[in-house]
């Protein structure tokens, strides 16, 4: 009997509760710090160590993507800069810090190929989203900046050309944050949404200190003008048009936008758009299927947590954690509040279930950023990760404060259906150096069949956590679209393996200003047979595949089925 079989849910919950009194806490995962060996040495800078401006605290994201189509996921790490860099940048000069592209060598190590690839940037970066926007078979990269964005078009030979201005997605001297690709109008070309945080000019001018726990710290964004969010329609010829207003996603209140993601939350075949906002309601834009959206955050229940007051949401995780076929949402927020889990009931209604999920008390002292659902032990049930860190370095000295600047990540195992138990310290993370962390993303970077984690740190290189949890069965699927966009972004996958039915989708842009493994990963526990894999492609075409091998990385092409089967790398 699988542990989470929904058919026996009530009995199982009772049984687990009873057992909890006498048995050891639920099994944890196993991770090891692989950063030093991997060679991810570039330090991510975000202003000075002692922060004097709101500009210096949000950190940056990172993206997993296979830039050279060798089947190994490479890593792009977005870097920040200093206020001086930003002033120079405004005057047309380049900054003194750059982003990093690490090529995956396939042996657990990476090589810094930033210069060869031409993606250094030298501009204060915030986030990234990777996707093949021109459908040429090579993954391109959008980097959001404080200032004009970059669009690095992949030349297909290991190099990139920066084309943001020509493509019409550079934006102005604004504070751009989240980016997400999705084909909102179903024309087969990936469109782009970019969130805006603050009016950068105003943020740069504001340097006065504010009191916090008896100390003088930099002032937060309250009272400042926000920067607008933008929706860019892909014209199919390498250029984009700003359709924010026509599409009805105008950020009229100029809320402080962070992470944005496209996902079909009501299963009507059209990708909706969720935007996590700091200090304001979250936006959920329902795609009406005619090129327009309608804001429905309040009526669908995700604008605010159940308390009805706005949170400071930063990161976004999307996943169907309860296997009901409707995508759920999880958002990170400021400390002394709770991270919020919105359960999708599947009828245009999502409910804040953070309390019963065990997430209120456990997240309260933490200030969360990057986050994702991922099945870390391949048991067929999604777990949760959050990267954390306070905004005030002074928090380390704050009188009576329970929050600290340096914070460990949180790793939640879905220990019973809908219940998440925090297991980081028992999962090998106790010895991992503490940082104030920001962007985070998962990927099976070593192609060994389990999901690994990477996250950025303020003033330090990224932390790479290699998953060494005992193996169970799994399958990973890379989608290749034919009628629609080549990446298959927006495709919905349903996998049936005996009594286990799971749903997932392909996205670009989530967590905190970051991008996860573009392949869809399913854990299968002890099941060695997949009965059916159904893929509903953007545009509505459905492929149903049987005889799907397990423990393999599969490439599935729209209308053709499985076109490539890749063996996993043997675990150490």
């Amino acid at each position, binding site marked *: 009997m699988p542990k989470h079989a929904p058919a026996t849910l009530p009995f199982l919950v009772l049984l687990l509760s009873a057992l909890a009194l006498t048995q050891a806490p639920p099994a944890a995962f196993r991770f090891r710090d692989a950063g030093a060996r991997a060679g991810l040495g570039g330090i991510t800078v975000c202003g000075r160590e002692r922060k004097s401006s709101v500009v210096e605290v949000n950190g940056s994201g990172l993206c997993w993507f296979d830039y050279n189509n060798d089947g190994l996921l490479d890593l792009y790490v977005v870097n920040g800069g200093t206020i001086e860099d930003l002033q120079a940048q405004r005057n047309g000069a380049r900054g003194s810090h750059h982003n990093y592209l690490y090529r995956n060598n396939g042996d657990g190590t990476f090589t810094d190929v930033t210069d060869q690839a031409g993606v250094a940037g030298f501009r204060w970066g915030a986030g990234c989203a990777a996707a093949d926007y021109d459908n040429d078979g090579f993954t391109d990269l959008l980097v959001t900046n404080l200032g004009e964005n970059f669009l690095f078009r992949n030349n297909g030979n290991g190099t990139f050309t920066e084309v943001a201005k020509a493509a019409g997605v550079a934006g102005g001297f604004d504070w751009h944050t989240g980016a997400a690709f999705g084909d909102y109008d179903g024309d087969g070309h990936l469109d782009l949404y970019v969130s805006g945080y603050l009016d950068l000019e105003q943020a740069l001018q504001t340097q006065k200190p504010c009191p916090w726990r008896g100390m003088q710290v930099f002032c937060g964004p309250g009272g400042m003008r926000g920067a607008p969010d933008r929706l860019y329609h892909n014209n199919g010829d390498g250029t984009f048009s700003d359709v924010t207003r026509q599409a009805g996603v105008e950020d009229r209140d100029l809320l402080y936008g962070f992470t944005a993601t496209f996902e079909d939350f009501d299963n009507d075949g059209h990708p909706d758009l969720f935007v996590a906002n700091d200090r304001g309601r979250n936006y959920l834009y329902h795609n009406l299927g005619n090129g327009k959206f309608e804001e429905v955050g309040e009526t669908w229940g995700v604008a605010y947590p159940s308390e009805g007051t706005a949170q400071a949401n930063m990161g976004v995780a999307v996943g169907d954690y309860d296997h009901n076929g409707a995508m759920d949402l999880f958002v990170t*927020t400021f400390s002394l509040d709770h991270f919020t889990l919105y359960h999708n009931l599947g009828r245009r209604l999502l409910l804040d279930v953070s309390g019963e999920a065990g997430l209120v008390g456990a997240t309260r002292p933490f200030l969360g950023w990057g986050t994702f659902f991922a099945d870390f032990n391949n048991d067929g049930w999604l777990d949760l990760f959050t990267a954390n860190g306070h905004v005030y370095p002074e928090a380390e000295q704050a009188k009576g404060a329970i929050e600290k600047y340096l914070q460990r990540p949180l790793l939640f195992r879905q220990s019973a259906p809908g219940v998440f138990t925090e297991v980081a310290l028992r999962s090998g993370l106790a010895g991992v150096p503490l940082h104030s962390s920001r962007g985070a993303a998962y990927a099976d970077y070593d192609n060994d069949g389990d999901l690994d984690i990477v996250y950025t740190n303020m003033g330090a290189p990224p932390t790479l956590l290699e998953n060494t949890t005992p193996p169970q069965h799994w399958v990973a699927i890379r989608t290749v679209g034919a009628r629609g966009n080549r990446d298959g972004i927006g495709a919905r996958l349903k996998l049936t393996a005996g009594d286990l039915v799971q749903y997932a989708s392909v996205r670009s842009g989530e967590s905190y200003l970051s991008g996860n493994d573009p392949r869809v990963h399913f854990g299968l526990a002890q099941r060695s047979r997949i009965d059916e894999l159904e893929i509903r492609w953007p545009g509505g075409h459905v492929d149903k595949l049987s005889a799907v091998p397990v423990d393999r990385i599969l490439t599935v092409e729209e209308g053709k089925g499985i076109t490539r089967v890749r063996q996993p790398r043997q675990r150490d």
Partner: protein
Amino acid sequence: MTGNWNILVEPREMSSKFSNGSGCKAWNRLWLIALAAFASAGLAQTAPDFRTVPGKEHYRKAVEYGDQGHWAAALLELNRGLAAEPGNPSILIELGIVHAERQEWQPALEALHRAAAAAPGSLRAHYNLGLTLDRADPGKGAGIPEYRRALHIEPAHVDSLLNLAIDLADRDPGESKALFQRTIQLAPRSAAAHMNYGLLLRRESEEGAAVAEFRQAIRLDPGLLEARRQLLAVLMSRRELAEAVGQCREILQREPGDAGTRYTLGQALIRIGKVEDGQKELAQAQTLRKAAQRHQQALEVQVQGVRDLDAGRFQQAAVAFRSAIQLYPSAERRMYLGLALAGSGDLAGALRELTSAVELEPRNARAHVNLAAVCLQAGREQQARAEVEKALQLDPWSPEAHNNLGLILAAGGHPEQAIEHFRLAADLNVRYLEAIFNLGLACRALRRLDEAAAAFRRAAGLAPESAQVRQALGLTLQDLGDPSGARAALKEAARLERRQK
């Protein structure tokens, strides 16, 4: 004028990411409860000291007016009292409080600082100075030193203890906690103390103790909605849904437009299986939020319109007010549009908008005053008089109404009566240039030249760059037989006029 009749709750929003100096929002949702602005309840106060009968009498009248909420009248009496007894700390304290009530922070703080300097041992001076510093610049803890001084004078002063505890909550939670405990010990029936203490405890993760404090605050003051909201947040996170629904309904009964609580009610109802009802509440919450958003946008446009109006850009102002009315109509916006139209010479349009404003809000004294002014401009003197009299029925202490009535009386050949109203207007608002100048003109018309010269001198003090005022002063001095004074004033008037040209 004693007791806790002046309760101010200043909300700060929760859960934003940063500390904020601006006072717009702060992350900790501690609420400043400002209490007892005038003499503190429960404390034996030394009777105010007066050297003159008029000083004492004006003070007494001011206190009476203050008790009835007639701030303008109280201000009038206090200014008269202060003229009789300059520097009297009791009068200065009340003056500071009345200015603070009118949110005139600079004169309020000036008066209270003077009071505290004149009477360093005055509990009321230090407490009210602390309170006004906090209100003028919220979130900065500006009142802390003054509350400490007040407590040095009277260690058991509950309001100082409470406000100090609130101010310190974000700076020194330990001391704040001790102060809250002491406050509750001294004033166990203070709902505000229980609620604020609960907020601190909740922030410090002592949820059980916080809930007990919120419940106690609600028991003591069932109308203290913030305590209910705080309790509600805890109930929702604990999934105590039935009680949460009850709290939502209690709040919404008192404040039906609270979108946040309606949203919570929607969520709670859905979770107890009443999905349809819950969805209705969520939709209602969205409608409320959208209305609030439109209202806010209209306010922003209105503020711009007022700026244009003040700067004499009447056509731009009219465009702004029309757009504000389209977003969110209100009597006030129609009134402003009327003024902008009058400024740009469209008297018919102005009369139409102002008439509409008084029809929409017949108890708006300002709208009546402004309609009267435009009627006067349009030569409708009878209607002007009727409107200004309506305004004075609604607000007997409106300086503008008295000034306009003075103008009407003067035009109707009643200069003596006009002088009385100009004088009252000028005393109600000591910086009211038009009323002071009109007073001078009316006195001069009646050959009350000394009074006229005094009024013009006062006007010249307020408007040193006005050639018109200097001219009037010069001519009056000439009539008074002061040729050198007249020459100087007329010379200055000529210089100013040249410069203006």
